[in-house]
């Protein structure tokens, strides 16, 4: 039984296939209007009677339409391609790309070269920065210096000592003394042995103080008063061997001095004999506009700190106190005004003798050599032991 069914299905399949081709041909001829009137009429009737045939015709019609569309598009593309081939596209592209974006073109054409160049440039910059950095490191001293100087303005003792105090560190073997000895200069305020120097020369941790005159005689001294704010210290010679000095040849100028005034100083930057240096007043204000000091163009050296700054008439106008490490010849001197203020501030009970400033100038009109000859007996080397 099943065999028969299969056989039937199989033969029907064959029949359908046979019909298929014929039917397709018929449909095609029908749709293309190739049928004679009679054949067409019978085919239409067949179509009406048979829904299956009708849907096959519709399907074929649809597909033929798609094929036609496909064909039309291919034909149109061929036509368009033919037209396109007549256009000089290259010329158009040139025309359009060259000027709107030559940088882009440049990049597209040369980006590898540009990349290499950029790498080289970056390398070069880094190298330069390395060297510049090297120099910067050295320059950092300048920066630190500057900072130190600024701190100096705050007038804390240690920082002042760090900065540029004109005192010398005595080499240990020469003195057979404990380390950390300092030297500076001081000068007489009065004939009875009051001496002024910089506060930073002695500091606040010293063991003993000695002053030594140009003749090489040393006298023990004690600190009478100090005013760190103005960097002023007042000492008094307290030694039996000390005899009162002849009256002072110089006076203290209370008013302000003017720019360009010739000034000189005596000090002990080197060895035990006084050293003379001259210069001129270069500014009425000191470091960073500090109004306590004058700026003086003089070649001061460590050891000059506390020395007198005199004008050509032999008036003391200041106390040499420091110098700028960066600017050549820029030294600073505390104005006499502040020395006098400090003297006024000395408590009376700490004065064993009267402190009388001289008011008689014996240097005016003398030649500088004569002035110095008279001066030098009143300028002392201050030695600090701690």
């Amino acid at each position: 039984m099943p065999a028969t069914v299969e056989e039937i299905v199989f033969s029907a399949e064959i029949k359908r296939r046979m019909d298929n081709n014929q039917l397709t041909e018929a449909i095609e001829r029908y749709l293309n209007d190739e049928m004679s009137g009679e054949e067409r009429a019978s085919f239409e009737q067949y179509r009406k009677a048979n829904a299956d045939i009708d849907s096959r015709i519709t399907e074929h019609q649809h597909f033929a339409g798609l094929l036609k569309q496909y064909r039309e598009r291919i034909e149109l593309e061929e036509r368009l391609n033919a037209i396109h081939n007549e256009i000089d596209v290259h010329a158009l592209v040139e025309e359009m790309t060259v000027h709107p974006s030559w940088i882009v073109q440049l990049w597209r054409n040369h980006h590898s070269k540009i990349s290499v160049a950029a790498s080289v440039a970056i390398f070069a910059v880094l190298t330069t920065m390395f060297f510049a950095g090297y120099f910067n490191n050295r320059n950092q001293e300048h920066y630190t210096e500057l900072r130190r100087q600024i701190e100096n303005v705050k007038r804390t003792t240690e920082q002042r000592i760090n900065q540029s105090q004109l005192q010398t560190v005595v080499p240990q073997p020469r003195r057979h003394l404990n380390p950390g000895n300092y030297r500076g200069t001081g000068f007489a305020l009065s004939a009875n042995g009051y001496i002024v120097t910089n506060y930073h020369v002695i500091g606040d941790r010293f063991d003993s103080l000695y002053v030594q005159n140009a003749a090489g005689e040393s006298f023990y001294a004690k600190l009478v008063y100090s005013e760190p704010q103005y960097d002023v210290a007042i000492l008094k010679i307290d030694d039996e061997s000390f005899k009162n000095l002849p009256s002072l040849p110089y006076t203290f100028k209370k008013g302000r001095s003017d720019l360009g005034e010739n000034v000189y100083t005596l000090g002990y930057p080197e060895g035990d004999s006084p050293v003379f240096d001259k210069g001129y007043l270069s500014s009425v204000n000191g470091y960073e506009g500090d109004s306590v000091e004058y700026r003086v163009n003089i070649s001061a050296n460590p050891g000059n700190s506390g020395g007198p700054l005199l004008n050509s008439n032999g008036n003391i106008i200041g106390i040499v106190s420091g110098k700028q490490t960066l600017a050549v010849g820029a030294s600073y001197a505390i104005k006499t005004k502040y020395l006098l203020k400090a003297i006024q501030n000395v408590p009376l009970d700490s004065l064993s003798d009267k402190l009388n400033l001289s008011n008689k100038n014996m240097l005016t009109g003398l030649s500088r050599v004569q002035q110095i000859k008279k001066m030098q007996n009143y300028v002392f080397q201050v030695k600090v032991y701690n």
Partner: protein
Amino acid sequence: MSKQTNTAAPTDSEVILGILNNSETVLKRLYIVYFPMVLQLVINNSGTQDDAKDIYQEAIIVLYNKVKSGEFELSSKLKTFIYSVCRRLWLKKLAHMNRYGGDIHDFQEHLPVEENMDLHTDRDIQFSKMESSLQLLGEPCKTIIEDFYIYDRSMQEICEKFGYTNADNAKTQKYKCLQRLKKLFFQQK
């Protein structure tokens, strides 16, 4: 080379009439006149001249089919229409290539052309389906079908070309091929 006298822009109604009448000269003038505009658009938006060609031809086909189907209404300048279609097609292609940065460098005014594109998109799908079905069909069917249905060759010619003993055999073969093509076509998604 392309700047002959007859390449002066044809008027928009000339173009429409020309397309309806299958005028080769009008098509050519149309093509030559607006191609530079599209080339400019495409090459300045990360395309090549071949991309420009494809896009432009597609746009011309859109216009052509629209005119032929009688749906085309000249509501704007033809130039604007072509530019807008090209722009739309190119944006789509850029998006497809993942090269679209969300920003396009425009050279002309343009219109939204979405509704104009539906028919085209549809036809385009059918076209590529047909194209790939023909590829899948393989030889000799592909050539037989193309020769008969596209290049209008007679059964006699086809018969001789493929060495069939008689036209009936060729015809049978052709219908078998057509049947397979239909199947392939409708099977494709």
